[in-house]
């Protein structure tokens, strides 16, 4: 088992970007994705499919905790444990706020046209679809466990 990176932040959206940046770097430890070229105009280095999946999913879970568990008011902490292994990244997100009813999340419409575009309820769908495993245990403490594996048991291709 690789060393686990632990981070505890106040349960507000103010600390979201900090947590996302750390998770993005942890994803790169597994994917071995290359740094963005210095002349690339974009600031962030989230292009590799593995990094994209991890960052996208974790961002939505952090949003969910800050909004639903802590009601946008903070008052508790979000404890994040990131374990980068050779071929997978496991992230546990623990909070001490209100439990979230994951079964109440409506699926996306099966037929998506211009009139049916959803304006909400997409976050959990993004996390579940992007990752190999998403589990939630209602507490307290509430615990999200996220897992993303490299495809085919190999490291992701290195991109420049």
């Amino acid at each position, binding site marked *: 088992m690789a060393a686990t990176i632990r981070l505890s932040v106040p349960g507000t959206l103010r600390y979201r970007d900090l947590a996302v940046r750390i998770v993005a770097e942890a994803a790169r430890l597994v994917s071995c994705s290359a740094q963005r070229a210095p002349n690339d105009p974009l600031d962030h280095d989230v292009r590799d499919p593995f990094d994209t999946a991890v960052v996208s999913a974790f961002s939505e879970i952090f949003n969910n905790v800050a909004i639903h568990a802590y009601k946008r008011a903070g008052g508790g902490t979000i404890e994040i444990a990131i374990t980068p292994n050779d071929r997978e990244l496991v992230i546990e997100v623990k909070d001490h706020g209100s439990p979230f009813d994951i079964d109440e999340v409506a699926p996306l419409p099966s037929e998506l046209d211009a009139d049916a*575009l959803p304006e909400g309820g997409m976050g959990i769908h993004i996390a579940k679809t992007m990752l190999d495993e998403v589990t939630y245990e209602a507490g307290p403490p509430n615990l999200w466990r996220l897992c993303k594996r490299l495809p085919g048991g190999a490291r992701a291709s290195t991109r420049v």
Partner: protein
Amino acid sequence: MPAPAFEVQRSSDSTKLNVRGSLDINTAAQLGEEIDRIVVDKPTLVVVDLSGLDLIDSSGVAALVKLYKGVRSSGGNVTISGARDQPLAIFKLLRMDKVFNL
């Protein structure tokens, strides 16, 4: 993450919206205010350029959907282009890439 920088250029035949940076739950509200102003103007065409967009989350997507629906509801049209990397992956996952012709 940097705040989303966005700029709006209005002309007689279209409104151009360029979005850069990270469009997420912390920043989408800012853009939402601008989107409200755009929709109120009832433009015939809104051209959205996402080539400078680094990251997006479901709140950012919701903001763009609000723009898309709002402009179309008053008879206008919206074109969205330039999405790449993580933002494009999100649009594809949500199956919005075909609706937006990305």
